[in-house]
């Protein structure tokens, strides 16, 4: 039933900023929803929107990509590329009949453990509210 819905959310975290923030959230024993499981990348610019489409098709209810604040990217301009790519990806999400609100791009610096916990909690609640990904359980998608 709707209130038993536990979303599957993926978080892509960049090694230098958001991954460190997540570690800090843990070290500070802040609660982060277990429904969000993370994948580490070196830079938010590594995340390819095409791969995310794969995630949507496999039934991801929400995807969060978190990188360094603009101007602070460890690799100079990576997060600017990420920003542009995901702005574009959002525009095509409705062709998949997916609510673009299922995707979130966030900037979280390494010292913002508290913010990491806040962003992930809020996003998980938001996804729970949106309900399951309509593409989940479509039989012809593996």
């Amino acid at each position, binding site marked *: 039933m709707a209130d038993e819905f536990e979303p*599957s959310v*993926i978080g892509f975290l960049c090694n230098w900023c958001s*991954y*460190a923030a*997540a*570690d*800090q*959230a*843990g*070290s500070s*024993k*802040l*609660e*982060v929803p*277990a429904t969000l*499981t*993370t*994948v*580490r*990348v*070196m*830079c938010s*610019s*590594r*995340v*390819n929107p095409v*791969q995310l489409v*794969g*995630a949507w098709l*496999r*039934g*991801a209810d929400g995807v969060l990509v978190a990188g360094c604040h603009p101007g602070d990217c*460890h*690799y*100079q*301009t*990576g997060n600017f*590329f990420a920003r542009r*790519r995901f702005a574009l990806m959002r525009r095509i999400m409705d062709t998949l009949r997916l609510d673009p609100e299922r995707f979130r791009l966030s900037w979280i610096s390494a010292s913002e453990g508290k913010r990491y*916990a806040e962003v992930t909690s809020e996003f998980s609640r938001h996804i729970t509210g949106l309900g399951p990904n309509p593409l989940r359980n479509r039989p012809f998608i593996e």
Partner: protein
Amino acid sequence: MPGIGLYLCECGPNIADSIDLDLVAAEVEKDGKVARVERFKLLCSEDGKKFLAESIKEHGYGHVVVAACSPKQHQTTFEEVAAGVGLNPHMIQMVNIREQCAWMTPDKEEATGKALRLVRAAVSRVRYHRALEQKEIECNPDVVVIGGGTAGVEAARRIAHEGRKVHLLGVAGLGSEPGADDAPAERVEELKQDPLAEVHEGCTVQDLLGFFGSFIARVKTREEEEIEIRAGSVVLATGAKPFDPAGFPGYGYGMLAGVTTVGEHARAEDGAPALGTDRPVKSVAVIHCVGREKLGYCSGTCCMEAMGFARRLKQSSPETEVTEFFRDLCLPGIGDDGFHRETEELGVHFVRFRDVEVAQDGDGLAVRYQAEDGSSDSLAVDAVVLAVGVKAGPSNADFAGMLNLGLDEHGFFQSEHPVLNPVGTVTEGVFTIGSCRGPASTSDVLIQAGAAAGKVLSALVPGRRMKLETRTSEVADKLCTGCGLCVAACAYGAVTRDDARRVAVVNEVLCRGCGNCAAACPSGAAQHRQFTARQLDQEVTQVLG
């Protein structure tokens, strides 16, 4: 096939109390993808590392997953353990079940579920790891220093050392101007006598090719000969230009008689400096902050230079009235406040202005200014000397083009990081020092010259081969269409297009391993060796449960 070895660290009670490791082990064993699951109380301890080493060796694993704390804590630790028993360190994948699972998930059942997803993700992923070999290349320990002013000469002096040669190129025709930045003649002579230094004066740099460890400078000498100089590193010390007050009628430079700049008098001999007027000079105004508003920054050196000039003037003709007009007095050096006090004691007057203008006043000049309290006033003088700021030289754009360097909005070279790597640039092995990267006092210049020497001496050691980073990106020729999107994505100039073969090529010396090119690539030709699309895909599939 030895298969995959999975190790679960309990981290004392930190993980064991919050996650049902028995359940995780049982479920993973059922999946059938790992050869065996082992647990240990504290893998990072001496006992733990010993256990891990012996176990990996005994079972001959080709792939290992360690579920423990954050890789930021102990990835290096476990990689060293692996390497110690002959397993390529890239064949280990760590799973963060402590900071990002046990510690942030109070409900044990939820934590266990999350840990299981993360461990499965790592097990699936590690199958696609490759045993990356660390490559080494020969590199040239020599250095090319471009620019024969104080910055270049001081850098060359500090770099020249046994085992490496330094080439100092004094460039002409690229905007460098004689002036206060000239190195003392003795220093240049010293360098010319040094067998480890080669000084080429008055040459033109036509092109700079290559990359860190093997640069080639194509140079036209003063005698019109074209030569090639090979070096491992390049230091740009191409200087800057003084701000030109001509064209700003408010200063009267080039329009009114008796208006000169401090720079024109920088090397005035003892005796009254020529002040641009034939009239007898009984009073002089020295105006600071010329160009500051237009340039948008304070050049930081002109206040001290202006005071130095005022003192020389006062000392050569003590009866002359000297007044310094300034917006702010910039005295950052430890002895500068003292210098200012002494200058006042010599009888030099100091007046703060909000606005200033130089105008003709009968046969002489008047400095009309608005004081701090808003009132207007005027001082009649016989001559005016302008302390002008510093602006970027035009050659910066040429070198930036040759070496893929960034220029800031003022035209100065951009640092790789303004705090952590000021003289470094995004192009590995290329350093910028002195006023070509921003206004710099003599003390700044000397420190920067030393810093470039420090970076070079530590990175390029004669006889030592350069070890290349393994976690870099690569382009599969067969899949590459030569579209060049990856070239544009790289902030470090590490990806170039081979026009002959019409494919992109990643230079492993320059690649920093961000993976941006891999995400930009429409055909999947560009991949990050340790974050391939397939590896990430495996993680995503398992993480979704």
